[in-house]
């Protein structure tokens, strides 16, 4: 693969207070055919260092105050993982030694290609403010953004029969995102013997698909653990990318799901795909916070991370009660070792066929707060020869607060199928500095 960029940038600085950055880049990728190869991506940013203005300085409040605004375009071409390095031109692949067919003949396979592929383009508009007040006691920033992506590169189904593939990468549509980010840092205590620094950040982002070139929705992966080839997620118009396409589960009076019973949303008397709805999987809100505390030789710090909203598909609920599985061929195998009646498995979902796996019963709120680490430290008095000794005790992944009933809601792809658990790590450290 060959990537080339030409880049130009100008920084203009008026009186140290008004900053303008203009840039333009031209990117070319060998992934795209010659006519679609180049993308021109300009950007502009302005900033106003308000804290250098005398009328702000006179207030004697702000250490730092800066307003920022920017607009820019960028290009993405991350497709080689999905379609290799030559997706735009026709090539023949030589069949492997185990994939011959006619006796004595080589096998040559015409590879799929898409000569119209080009850069995915993102236009971002953002505005922000950086501030610091009271001599470093409080500082932070606020940013808002709006991002439009066009010519989105994604795997799209090929209309049957119109190319030698069932799907291929294409510039399939557009998305729109908007959101904000806030970060704040407080130096709550700052004395000779002790200090306490508290920090927090939060972000809100909402991304919606706004165009799919006339198609209502396309598959977006999310394989469910019932054999291969059953997928949960869709890219659909006016929805978050990769939303779960599910049926609304019916429940009995005791609040338990009724096997394979779903709401007839369009009220036509039958349960079909038309009764499915889309539910966003990814959270709109994410956050983090933490603190560093020092008292004399003692230090304590911790950081937390979490999300509010989002969904996780609890596949254990689907698979653990599967009693209608085939009878094992041999007599030594255990078929179903969980005890349903103590709650270890769910006997209600006794089979996984058909629509059962697409129930919204398996979707659970993925909100969580995770304590990423806690560190307790102690710095001993230096020894006579100047050696410094520090002791520390750290717990990584200390605890998790969540209502999710499975093992961990933070699960890439949003489908929890007994993934390898995050370890909780305890570390005891002694640090000698000679």
């Amino acid at each position, binding site marked *: *693969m*060959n990537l*080339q960029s*030409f880049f130009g940038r100008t920084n203009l600085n008026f009186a140290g207070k008004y900053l303008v950055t203009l840039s333009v880049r031209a990117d*070319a*990728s*060998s992934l795209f055919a010659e006519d679609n190869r180049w993308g021109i991506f300009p950007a502009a940013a302005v900033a106003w260092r308000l804290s250098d203005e005398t009328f702000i300085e006179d207030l004697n409040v702000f250490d730092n105050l800066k307003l920022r605004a920017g607009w820019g375009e960028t290009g993405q071409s991350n497709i080689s993982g999905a379609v290799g*390095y*030559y997706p735009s031109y*026709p*090539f*023949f*692949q*030589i*069949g*492997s*030694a*185990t*994939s*011959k*067919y*006619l*006796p004595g*003949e*080589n*096998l*040559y*396979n*015409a590879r799929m290609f898409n000569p*119209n592929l080009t850069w995915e383009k993102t236009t971002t508009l953002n505005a922000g403010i950086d501030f610091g007040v009271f001599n470093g006691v409080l500082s932070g920033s606020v940013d808002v953004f709006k991002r439009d992506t066009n010519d989105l590169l994604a*795997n799209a*189904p*090929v*209309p*049957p*029969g*119109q190319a*030698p*593939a*069932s*799907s291929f990468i294409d510039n399939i549509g557009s998305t729109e995102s908007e959101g904000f980010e806030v970060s704040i840092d407080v130096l709550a205590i700052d004395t000779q013997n002790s200090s306490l620094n508290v920090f927090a950040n939060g972000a809100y982002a909402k991304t919606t698909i706004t165009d799919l070139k006339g*198609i*209502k929705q396309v*598959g977006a992966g999310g394989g469910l653990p*019932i*054999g*291969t*080839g*059953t997928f949960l997620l869709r890219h659909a118009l006016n929805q978050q990318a990769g939303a779960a396409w599910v049926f609304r589960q019916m429940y009995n009076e005791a609040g338990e799901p009724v096997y394979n019973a779903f709401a007839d949303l369009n009220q036509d008397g039958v349960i079909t*795909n038309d009764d499915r709805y889309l539910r966003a999987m990814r959270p709109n809100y994410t956050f983090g916070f933490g603190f560093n505390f020092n008292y004399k030789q003692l230090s304590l710090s911790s950081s937390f991370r979490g999300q509010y909203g989002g969904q996780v598909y609890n596949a254990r609920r689907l698979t653990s009660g599967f009693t*209608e*599985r*085939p*009878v094992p*061929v*041999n007599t030594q195998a255990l078929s179903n070792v969980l005890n349903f009646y103590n709650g270890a498995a769910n006997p209600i979902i006794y089979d*996984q*066929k*058909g629509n059962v*796996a697409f129930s919204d019963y398996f979707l659970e709120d993925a909100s969580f707060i995770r304590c990423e680490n806690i560190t307790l430290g102690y710095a001993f008095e230096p020894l006579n020869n100047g050696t410094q000794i520090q002791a520390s005790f750290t717990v990584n992944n200390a605890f998790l607060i969540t209502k999710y009933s499975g093992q961990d809601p933070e699960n890439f792809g949003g489908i929890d199928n007994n993934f390898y658990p995050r370890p909780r790590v305890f570390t005891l450290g002694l640090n000698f500095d000679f």
Partner: protein
Amino acid sequence: MKKILLIFFVATLAVSCVDDLNTKPEIDLTLEELLKQDPNAVSGILSRLYGSFALSGADGPGSSDIDDDAGESPFLRGIVNLQDFTADGLKNRWGDDGLDQLTTATKWDENNKFFRYMYNRIYYTIPQANNLINVLGGVEVDNEAQVEGEVRFLRALAYYYLIDCFGKGVLATEENFGQSTPLPEVTRTELYNYVESELLAVEGLLPDTNSYGRADKAAAQFLLARLYMNAEVYTGSAQFANALSYAEKVITGSGHTLAPDFLQNFSGDNHTSPEIIFPLIADADVSQSYGNTTYIVNGSLSGETMTLSDYGATEGWGGHRASKGWYGLFAADAAGLAASSDKRAHLFWTGGHAYDMESYKKWTDGFPSIKFRNRAFNNPSGTNTSFSSTDFPLFRLADAYLMYAEAQVRGGGGSAATALQYVNNVRSRAGATAITASELTADFILDERARELNFEGVRRSDLIRNGKFTGGSYTWPWKGNTLNGTSIPDHYKLFPIPQRSLEANPNLTQNTGY
């Protein structure tokens, strides 16, 4: 001057760099490079097209041409799943979502991945053929007309299965190849007319005989006979006279003869059988697939009740068993099967298995079929393999004999005496007693086709043609998901168009009833 030189230097550097953007793969080749390297390249492209009916991909048995599972989605595996497991003679016990619905003929819907696999595979093969026709237009090839005939035959074959399974689609040809706007939907009759006209045209292009595995005249004639046999189902207008005449062409004109022993057609060396008109090739070393006969052989074996090496296999997947819908046509119990003079009755494994299939999910309920095996017929001492080397007899002469007889009985003309002779040829080859003229009815032929052709991917079509697939007039174990079988709805004569295809081409509409 220095400055100008510098600019010149930078510009040259930039231009030469920009040229680097025209990257070339180290392994893959353009058509021109391929033809330069291998003047015979077109037969390699043709090989790939033939292979589309047996292989999953060009890069070993784990690779897939379509974005479906390499193991589950190959063509022949789909045909066995869709034609045999949905019908009376064979059931699968795995309980996989989708496959279970096929085996019990219940709850079919557009989300079932096994319909998608077949639809995707058919519509992968067709544009590959269209592409090759376009390639042929631009290069010099020996025997160009014949090669074109073969390509068009393979495309017609793919369309045949579209007509039979799904009944509608789009008409993708070399003329609209590469078009990105979705093609309009065409009806079953339009597809039928297209396939008929294509096969009539390629009959004249194909040679009388061809090298092994490649289509000759008889292959096109056989497919025409099969198309005409089912014409009433496909278009509403019966074509038994044409069916008979094309079956006759195959029987009298192709030079094929019945293999002396029935089992020769299903053994590891069946490429030597004089009976097979068109095979789907398998080879344990160089042509591996989880969806060629490997699926049939390994899927029908289990080391728990059988000895794998008896069949030249090393893997038993414990999946498929025949039901009494098949072996019940020979005898009412295991002892009766063993005592039958009909050798075809012996091709069921009965030891440790129950005659009745109380639970289709239990391996020992029902007798596995041992019709297909890796073991060679003539030299049975070969090594055991995990992949099969047994070719799949997609078209074979005995089927043409039975088509002639059925077309004759159904008013297609011909000779009643010849029809009887053909049926008795098939029966006597297997060691079964000859029947008399009065016994030769459409119902008898349907049963004879089960005895002779089950597990060869035609059973569902045969039952539909005889009005016995849907409804409750004829039932079999687990039809409609009940032990003794129950009625299934009439719209099950067609499979639903897969959800994914409906989304990819908004012009496509769902089959009635789904």
